């Protein structure tokens, strides 16, 4: 009977591990965004500084998208 639980546990481990990893990664990306904003305040090196902030923001959105997709698909 325990043999049937093997793949289920494996699936849950994969899903749980992936969700934790992507969740932690989203937090890291939020820190990156905050730092991009902070550095822009220290030195505004033209339009590229704004571009970095937008890219960091886009990364967070993609990260959330992956997190939600993992929640549904895996």
């Amino acid at each position, binding site marked *: 009977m325990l043999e049937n639980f093997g793949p289920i546990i494996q699936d849950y481990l994969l899903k749980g591990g992936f969700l934790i990893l*992507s969740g932690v990664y989203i937090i890291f990306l939020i820190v990156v965004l905050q730092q991009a904003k902070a*550095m822009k305040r*220290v*030195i505004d090196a033209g339009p590229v500084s704004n571009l970095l902030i937008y890219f960091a923001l886009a990364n967070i959105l*993609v990260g959330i998208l992956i997190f939600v997709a*993992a929640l549904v698909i895996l």
Partner: protein
Amino acid sequence: MPDIFIDQDPQDAPPIQSETSESLEKPAEKKQVPLTGMHNKHELLKSLGMKSHGGGLHALSSYFEDPSKVNFTNKLDEEILLLFLRRHFLTNLPWFLKAFALSLIPVIFEVLSTFGFFSSNFTDPTGKLLVYGFYYFFVLSGYIFVNYMTWFYNISLVTNIRIIDIDYSEIVFEHVDATKLSQVEDVGYKQIGILRSIFDYGDVHLQTAGTVTNFEFLAVPHPENVIRIINNLLGRTPHA
């Protein structure tokens, strides 16, 4: 009858005008442009032998003269930004190659699994796509973006009043140092290695007076130009 032979007092005599009189005088001193005052900006740039490019930096700029569109915190009203420096773009090559190698890992993994070295069926195809998608997103945003940002915000600035060094690394470390030009005592640069000689970049060292931190602009392009400009500025600054 007036005595026409009375000699004139030499002190009252007008100076003798001749073509050689100017050449005997001391040579005229070169006009020193004051370091402060925005109206003097173009004169100052010209006297330092610098070019004005209109101020616009691009995403890969590592050496820029007169970056007028750049702003930094605590900028003084009469402060003119003269030089904007970053590490040479070539110094990004190591992490760029590492990112390329990292991006090949899933491909190698899949190729090896098709030859039967090991199974890549850890989940269904949709799940696998998601895991690989996350991996590439991780490499792109986590590794390339953070390394680029670290390079982008490691900046050194030379103004008509100060020298500013902004260090930024590992996302959470930022360190800003500034010193007045009058505190700078010694300037020098090092350019060792084939790549540095070919692409003309090197380390500039600024020794400052007393306990003030010494400055190092590492791997900046055209170090001899940087030294020339700073030396010219130091020549005009009254030392403390």
